[in-house]
């Protein structure tokens, strides 16, 4: 038996891969649920109900999808240029704490219309800077950015932990390590009353479309794709490799930082070290499930958010740990990898 490269990749197959991958992942997690002695279909039904069963749960799912869209875009943009940014988690925290610092210390008194854009930009810039460090190490010292971005995640979270323990500590939080809250005028407007859903949803979706247009229509999009697919040929064709990667890193890190900013300004209002349940890492899964397509990121983020919110709901009524959601998400990444492989290769004999 051996694998043979497909001449053509049928479009239908490419569109079907994420669905096949998700079904495979659900089937595998089903086995784990069954091993736990629980009825599988009931569990999944409860997950669906938990995610979409009521107005509240649906808006929660959408709210949860917002940071996932942004971290998913961050990963998708970077991976397309073969920049392995695994540091979205750290960039998210740095973006978040920057927003808290800037709002509480500097611009808290500004009206919403001015303060919100300033804060969003600050959060994004902070994320950018954190990714430019490993990129610099790669360009200057040829250090693989996978490991450095991973390690910087820990540094970033410790840094945040230090700030919320010291200079940015909220004195009114009964001693809990929690940052000073952002100003009320810094909070993103809600989309619906009696829900936490905020306009971050539209920001994230609009950005996905913008990225799609950048990738398909602009010189930068063409050049960054070339840089990712074949750096040697890109250099030969005059693509400024370093500059392209810097731009890619700025967008990628910026989006991850923005995810943190939006999560603080839309949901929490302040920063703790529990702000993100791994949004940065899940973003990688989102990007892979979307096959690195920015529009696909929107749908993939919704799926992952539904898994997490749904599993929370499910575990309230059944004896299955919520970690089943993490397991399913990880499995969907692995099965997506296999599915992508089979869009490119076929088995022979």
């Amino acid at each position, binding site marked *: 038996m051996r694998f*043979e490269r497909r*001449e053509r990749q049928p479009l239908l197959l490419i569109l079907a891969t994420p669905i096949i991958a998700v079904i495979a992942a659900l089937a595998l997690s089903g086995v784990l649920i069954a091993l736990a002695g629980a009825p599988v279909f009931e569990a999944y039904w409860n997950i669906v109900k938990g995610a979409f069963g009521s107005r509240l749960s649906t808006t929660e799912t959408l709210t949860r999808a917002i940071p996932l869209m942004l971290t998913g875009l961050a990963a998708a943009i970077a991976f397309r240029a073969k920049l392995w940014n695994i540091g979205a988690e750290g960039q998210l925290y740095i973006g978040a704490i920057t927003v808290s610092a800037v709002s509480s210390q500097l611009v808290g008194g500004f009206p919403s219309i001015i303060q919100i854009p300033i804060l969003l930009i600050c959060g994004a810039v902070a994320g950018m800077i954190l990714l430019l460090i490993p990129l610099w190490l790669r360009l200057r010292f040829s250090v693989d950015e996978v490991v450095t971005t991973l390690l910087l995640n820990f540094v970033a979270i410790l840094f945040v932990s230090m700030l919320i323990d010291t200079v940015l500590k909220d004195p009114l939080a009964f001693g809990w390590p929690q940052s000073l809250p952002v100003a009320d005028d810094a909070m993103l407007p809600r989309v619906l009353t009696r829900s936490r859903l905020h306009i971050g949803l539209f920001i994230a979706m609009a950005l996905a479309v913008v990225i799609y247009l950048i990738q398909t*229509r602009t*010189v930068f999009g*063409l050049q960054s794709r*070339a840089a990712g697919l074949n750096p040697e040929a890109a250099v*030969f*064709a005059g693509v400024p490799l370093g500059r392209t990667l810097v731009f890619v890193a700025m967008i990628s890190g910026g989006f991850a930082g923005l995810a943190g900013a939006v999560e603080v300004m839309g949901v929490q209002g302040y920063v703790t070290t529990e702000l993100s349940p791994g949004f940065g890492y899940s973003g990688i899964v989102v990007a892979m499930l979307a096959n690195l397509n920015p529009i696909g990121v929107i749908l993939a983020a919704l799926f992952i958010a539904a898994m997490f919110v749904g599993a929370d709901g499910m575990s309230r009524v059944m004896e299955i740990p919520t970690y089943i959601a993490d397991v399913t998400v990880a499995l969907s990444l692995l099965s997506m990898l296999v599915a992508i492989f089979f869009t490119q290769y076929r088995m022979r004999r």
Partner: protein
Amino acid sequence: MTENALEISGVSKSFGDNLANDNISLALAKGEIVALLGENGAGKTTLMNILFGHYVPDEGSVSVMGKLLPQGKPREAIRAGIGMVHQHFSLAPNLTVLENVITGTQGIWSLATDIKSARQKLLDISQRFGLIVDPDARLGDLSVGEQQRVEILKALYNDAQILVLDEPTAVLTNIEAEQMFSTLKDMAKQGLSLIFISHKLDEVMATADRIFVLRGGKSVAERQVEQTNKSELAELMVGREVKRPVREVSTPGDVILNASDVSVLQSGVERLKNVDFHVRAGEVLGIIGVSGNGQATLAQLLSGTAKRSKGNMTLFGEEVGDLTVPDVVELGIGRIPEDRNHEGVIGEMTIWENAILERIPEFSKNGLVDRIAGIKFADEVIDAFDVRGATPTKRIRLLSGGNMQKLILGRNLLKQPRLLLAAQPARGLDEGAVAAVHERILSARKDGTGVILISEDLDEVLALADRIQAIVGGRLSPSVSAEDADARKMGLMMSGEWSDREGVA
């Protein structure tokens, strides 16, 4: 009748719809040298991979010393006494010579490598066949010729009785190649049997006892060397008479590129040393030499991807500073890179994107790519340069090598460049495509384009170039008119036999 050392009988192998080997039979006697002659794609390499157990044939069998060889098992092939010397060396640059040679020769579960006796055996073999290398040198530090010796030593170390060499001279200078063939003849005298694969008629005629010609996967002829000649072999190999385009006499115009005393430093190594060269409009300057002597750096310098550390360059009458790729393209310099797949195209991108990538400023406005103009340009190139099987929105990796090269030529020549840099433009192409590429280069020359042709293929250079310089160790020889050049003289040039003052002897 003596027993044949090797017998291949009725071997067929297909990949998809492509029949790479069609019922091939071949026998090799002890002490005999057999040449397998054929163009690229004739099925030589597939046959050798079957022989060595890398591929399982669909039909047919291989036997060694009268014993049937189990199929698809490289280890069994080694054990039976077959040694293979690949065209692309199968060596690990970070290991020593000795380590490269003995890997896999001792029981994998033994508790210690027997270095001492291994070293002795290696030294004995290199003495016996005159293949001298330092066993403890790091392989990556050796020259290409030395690496090839290691590759042969590896086979001999495994007690090979039958040695298979795939294009053994592709990477050697003429002089190294001559040494190599005398070593091979010596080996045959000592009782080894050899098969070597080649498409070079001269070396086949000079070395082999018997010649098999492969074409389109079939064995089309078998000749004793005394019974044949070069022109018959050429016809058998190609299956038709091939006319390479003839260079017309032209009168070169003004000097369009002049480089004097140019050096290039790359990662601390001086890859080009004080070179002087110039090209006139309507003239082809051929740069010959064994690869790895600075050709890549020279090409990069003119492509805008390497900077001078010293020296002056005048382009189209004006002194120029450091050039970037967009500068170079803007100035009207066309570039055909040495390595199509690594530098020339991006396989996963479409044909139109590949056509315009290096001309982005021309095909974009305000940072937006002009897709319609790009597709139109690609269509024009496809039409004008007869790129078969191409539509602008198809991914370029689906094209054959020849058609890919035509597209690369087209994207450069359609815009009438003033200077064309062509690095190994015909490498790896079949005869038909080679002729097409050469014809295009000559017609550009006729239109007044100055051409720099970097090539290892002396026939190609003789056919196209007006003047010839050799590159050796980063230095350029004085130029020699093509009329005065012959194989011997070029051989001398390529081995560095010239003095800067007196020119080539």
